């Protein structure tokens, strides 16, 4: 029986038509072999548009459908469902893109229309070979893996665990809380960060549905949506978590001191350490690179003083395997190291601080006990805050880090509040971006406190004084672009608002989880607007700043979104798996096993009895490595078979030349068996 194909060409309002002459394309399609009806419509994706397809299937007995409209990435599902509603198998449908790849990028209407016709012809030729395919359902493991226990990971884990699903929360550092645990106050409400985050941290440790693994990393992930398997590496803590009471005696006795990462290098910690008295879990860890015993020297002071005998130098790295259904990534961000920006003198001048260091200076449990003082113990008389260090800068990160304006304003207020109102505070900014709830009001409040705002990115921070009042100060040199005047501002202290950037090992993490990075290096979401928490890999979701710079409210909202998405899968318990996987025809297979060596998922096995390779469809992801290499053509990806691709190429290439060149007699197009009558195309 010949196929009865319906072709539908969309106008997409004015997005496709008139650049691409949709009625003419529909008319052209009507003359293609097998096409029963060719129609154009203003919005094919609208209800009347879909009804048009459904009615035609029912009344004209169509058994194949082609829609030419936007990218299949947007509306393929919409039309597949429409086709399904009319009782036709959704895989007997083909969509071709004449908007993103045609009307939007080709300014010449004649060329755009001609190309649209070729794309439609290709889709029509291809759809002839489509086969009925049926999706299968797989169970979804109810457990969820959350990677990273900063505020985003904590939020996601708590949201999921409250639903009754079990959460495995993996954190790389010895305690949870992430960057937020380092902060003192949060903008714009000036809540203390610890006051609002520690209850959540404690809730995580007490929630029976959360399996918290700190000092641990996800090493490998395998499987597919609903059925992932993760290998988690538990680093040796050298402290028995069950015996340790968290009394902290060892922290006082340990003789080895190194720079503290948590204090951003402003203070020292012992080899056995914990971040703060509020750390969760509140049990220390021994730094193997600094500990004397672990480096073959004599010591063991901590073990000697530990009242509960919790120190265990014999601990070894362990690995655990977890079965999970979905994964939420909340791996966070790093801050830019401003040392390479030599002009700001970070690392050369002791009174130049990064934003995070200044945060620690403010913190009540920080190196100065919350006092804003210089290294000599004196209060600063004047402070310069330089915005956009490494952000909005083509030499570093083009993007805006989104939080610096607001935390700079917070510092403005805190300096005025803690050091005294007479302290002069200078903000060097490019633009003030105070876009969130209550942010603009906070800016107004800080402005009223008498802070100076200078528009312009400073050129340099120097200690070379030109006048007596600059003596002994750091001089910020820049241009006030509103006054068009160069200025020199002598200050006691400089704070650099450094950019948020992707974690140093982001590429490795992306590889482990099989997801992509965007141009800026952060993890790539499925869609920048409508899919901000999902990724191109089903069942893996993003939470917080691993997807891009965010402030706390946005990170928390993003995490709650990721939790909801993961839960949607976990709660339903079933997931539909696409049938577009590999199939090896046992009658054609010669048993060469080429495909077995190529399969990245070990989804192909050799059936020795029949002498053929067999695909395990549950493990196959349909990448087509086997089909691309099969010497006999036995391996084919369903919906991407050799016949379908060949037919698509036939339609795409016949006739070969687009109308602007002279017609070629006896062209290859004719030689390839494309026999449609397409003379009308030249007038397109």
């Amino acid at each position, binding site marked *: 029986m010949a196929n009865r194909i319906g072709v539908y060409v969309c106008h997409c309002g004015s997005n496709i038509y008139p650049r691409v002459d949709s009625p003419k394309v529909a008319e052209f399609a009507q003359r293609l072999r097998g096409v029963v009806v060719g129609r154009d419509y203003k919005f094919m994706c609208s209800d009347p548009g879909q009804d048009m397809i459904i009615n035609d299937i029912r009344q004209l007995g169509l058994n194949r459908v082609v829609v030419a409209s936007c990218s299949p990435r947007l509306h393929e599902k919409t039309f597949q469902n429409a086709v399904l509603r009319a009782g036709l198998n959704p895989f007997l449908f083909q969509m071709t893109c004449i908007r993103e790849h045609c009307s939007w*990028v080709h300014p010449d209407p004649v060329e755009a229309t001609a190309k649209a016709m070729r794309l439609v012809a290709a889709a029509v030729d291809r759809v002839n070979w489509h086969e009925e395919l049926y999706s299968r359902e797989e169970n979804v493991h109810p457990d969820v893996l959350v990677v990273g226990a900063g505020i985003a990971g904590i939020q996601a884990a708590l949201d999921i665990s409250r639903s009754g699903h079990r959460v495995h929360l993996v954190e790389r550092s010895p305690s949870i809380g992430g960057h937020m645990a380092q902060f003192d106050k949060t903008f714009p409400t000036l809540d203390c960060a610890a006051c609002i985050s520690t209850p959540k941290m404690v809730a995580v440790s007490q929630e029976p549905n959360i399996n918290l693994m700190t000092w641990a990393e996800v090493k490998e992930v395998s499987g597919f949506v609903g059925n992932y398997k993760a290998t988690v590496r538990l680093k040796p803590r050298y402290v028995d978590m069950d015996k340790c009471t968290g009394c902290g005696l060892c922290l006082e006795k340990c003789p080895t001191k190194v720079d503290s990462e948590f204090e951003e290098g402003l203070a020292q910690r012992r080899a056995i350490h914990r971040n703060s008295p509020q750390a969760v879990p509140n049990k220390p860890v021994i730094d193997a690179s600094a500990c004397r015993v672990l480096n073959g020297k004599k010591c063991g002071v901590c073990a000697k003083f530990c009242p509960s005998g919790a120190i265990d130098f014999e601990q070894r790295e362990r690995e655990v395997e977890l079965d999970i259904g979905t994964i939420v990534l909340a791996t966070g961000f790093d801050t830019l190291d401003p040392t390479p920006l030599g002009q700001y003198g970070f690392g050369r001048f002791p009174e130049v601080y990064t934003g995070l260091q200044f945060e620690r200076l403010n913190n009540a449990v920080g190196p100065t006990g919350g006092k804003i003082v210089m290294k000599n113990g004196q209060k600063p008389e004047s402070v310069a805050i330089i915005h956009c260090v490494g952000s909005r800068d083509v030499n570093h990160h083009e993007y805006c880090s989104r939080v610096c304006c607001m935390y700079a304003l917070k510092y403005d207020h805190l300096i005025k509040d803690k050091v005294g109102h007479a302290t002069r505070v200078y903000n060097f900014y490019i633009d003030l971006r105070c876009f969130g709830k209550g942010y603009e009001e906070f800016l107004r409040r800080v402005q009223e406190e008498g802070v100076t705002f200078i528009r312009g990115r400073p050129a340099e921070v120097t200690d070379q004084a030109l006048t007596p009042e600059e003596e002994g100060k750091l001089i910020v040199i820049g241009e006030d672009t509103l006054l068009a005047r160069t200025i020199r501002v002598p200050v006691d202290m400089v704070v650099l608002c450094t950019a948020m950037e992707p974690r140093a090992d982001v590429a490795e993490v992306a590889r482990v989880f099989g997801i992509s990075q965007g141009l800026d290096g952060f993890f790539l979401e499925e869609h920048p607007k409508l899919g901000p928490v999902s990724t191109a890999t089903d069942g893996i979701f993003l939470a917080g700043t691993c997807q891009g710079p965010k402030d706390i409210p946005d990170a928390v909202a993003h995490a709650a979104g990721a939790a909801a998405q993961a839960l949607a899968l976990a709660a339903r318990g079933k997931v539909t798996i696409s049938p577009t996987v590999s199939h090896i025809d046992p009658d054609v297979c010669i048993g060469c096993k080429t495909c077995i060596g190529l399969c*990245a998922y070990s989804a192909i096995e050799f059936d020795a009895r029949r002498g053929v390779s067999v695909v395990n469809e549950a493990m196959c992801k349909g990448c087509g*490595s086997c089909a*691309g290499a099969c010497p006999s053509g036995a391996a084919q990806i369903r919906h991407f078979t050799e016949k379908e691709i060949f037919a698509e190429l036939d339609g795409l290439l016949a006739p070969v*030349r687009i109308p602007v*060149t002279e017609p070629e007699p006896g062209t290859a197009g004719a030689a390839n068996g494309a026999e449609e009558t397409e003379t009308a195309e030249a007038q397109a």
Partner: protein
Amino acid sequence: MERFEPTIVAFVCNWCTYTAADLAGTARMIQSPNVRLVRMMCTGMVDPKYVLKALLGGADAVLISGCHPGDCHYINGNYKARRRVKLLKEILTGFGVDERRVKLTWVGASEGNEFAETVNELVEDIRELGPGETSRMMVI
């Protein structure tokens, strides 16, 4: 004399380059209309015979484009494509087909501008190279 307008078939992977092409479209990056896309799930499924079929069918060049090395949605399909294209080029050269008529590139999902540039550059290069002779040279 009229300008030569090459016909180019592009096999692009669904996850990276097809997405990049969508992005280039959304951002209205003007491209030569000579390149026609065939959506594949992965460059690893591009059988060399598809490339040959396109060349024999009258395409003046073939572009294969997928995810950057290490970024493949299917772990390593793009590496398989790379090996396959290298071999294919050697064979094609042996048959007198200019190897520049088969191009392999990596264009990531967020690189819309990169995609538009790749398309426009390739069209210019092939325009300079002249019409492909493959379809006339060989009869199947």
